[in-house]
């Protein structure tokens, strides 16, 4: 799987209103002011289409930071 910086860029492209550069690997995504639960679906869709990896709601619940999500996806891709 590609570098986490590329992964973050892809997330930024999908989530409207997210200022580029605010999303860091350590960012707790649920604490972002722009975050809403709709983004869980967006992340699942991104993972399916970009990496052909299925992540579940349970997987996401176990993640706190962007790095955690990246690790889940990269471990399966």
């Amino acid at each position: 799987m590609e570098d986490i910086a590329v992964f973050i860029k892809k997330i930024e492209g999908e989530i409207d209103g997210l200022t580029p550069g605010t999303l860091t690997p350590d960012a707790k995504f649920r604490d972002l002011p722009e975050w809403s639960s709709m983004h869980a679906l967006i992340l699942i869709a991104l993972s399916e289409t970009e990496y052909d990896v299925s992540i579940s709601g349970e997987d996401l619940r176990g993640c706190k930071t962007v790095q955690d999500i990246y690790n889940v996806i990269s471990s399966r891709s």
Partner: protein
Amino acid sequence: MACYYICVVWFYKRCQPFLTFGSMSTIQAISYYLPDAIYTNEDFFTEFPDSKKSNFDKIGVRKRHIIAQGETASDLACRAAKKLFEEHGIDKNEIDFLLLVFQGPDYYLPSSSGIIHAKLGLRNDCGAMDIEMGCSGFVYGLSVAAGLIAAAGMKKIVLLTASSLTNTLHPKDKGSRFVFGDGAAATLITADGNGSINSFVFGNDGKGYEKIIIRDGGARNPITYGSHDETTDEFGSVICNANYFMDGISVFMFSTKRVPQLVNDVLAKAGLQKEDIDLFVFHQPNIMLNETIRKKLDIQEDKFVHSMAEVGNTVQSTIPIALYESIQNGRLKRGMKVLVAGFGVGLSWSGAIIDY
């Protein structure tokens, strides 16, 4: 010898869809009916001012039609059938069978299709049957129609699909209220056309029955005071057991995994490649989900139909409405091959090839 073998293989591949089903069935005509009341996105964001517009934009609905107080799904279905007869100049006396695919009957018994049969004034020797199916139901209905034509020698079958789901939504279930619209479609399937409906694939994962459910109000759980106890889900939507519930993330995942497999199974059964299909018409739950599926299957955008912006998710009627709109805007023409796929509540799925 090699030549003979090639001929046999060619013949088998070409005829395989028709070997599966005896007489050929064709979609002859489609009409649909939407209730008058419209709920726009402006109405929605006025009612739910805290909802972030950019998030909801990804769902891809601009407005939806809402069933009137006291109206039922069978009322919508009846109007769709009348529209079909009027719009296409169909003689109701020629109809051999009436199928009604819906959820939410007028009464515990009798069947709602029988009531519509009377309202439409169909012949007494025209059969009527309810099929209780949701999002995957249109293709199930097509298969029953094709079966009646093949096995019972029927000539003209009206397949009605109708949804009054907004009646079952909690007023504060904002996710579902944004997505769903009411409506009904009527499809005439005939034995005398040049096309066919074939290569049906069905499936069901009953273990997922609670992923989309109205828990109370049926025979298993009657309505009690507790049925109206409210909880707020992770999307900020209010739900209770008397109302419609959907586990959005699970259903999203089910669809992204199941539908590509379904499409490949239909193609394999038909002996076709993806490139042989002129148009892919799927159930329309939301655009983000269907785009995910489209990208996974690597289907070109110009071969893939999105048709929910003006009507929302009309459950059983999404596919016939999408087919109707595709005919109207010239994307679907006679002679084309269409792959249809339904998926959702059950959890259930279905697919087929329509040689239109």
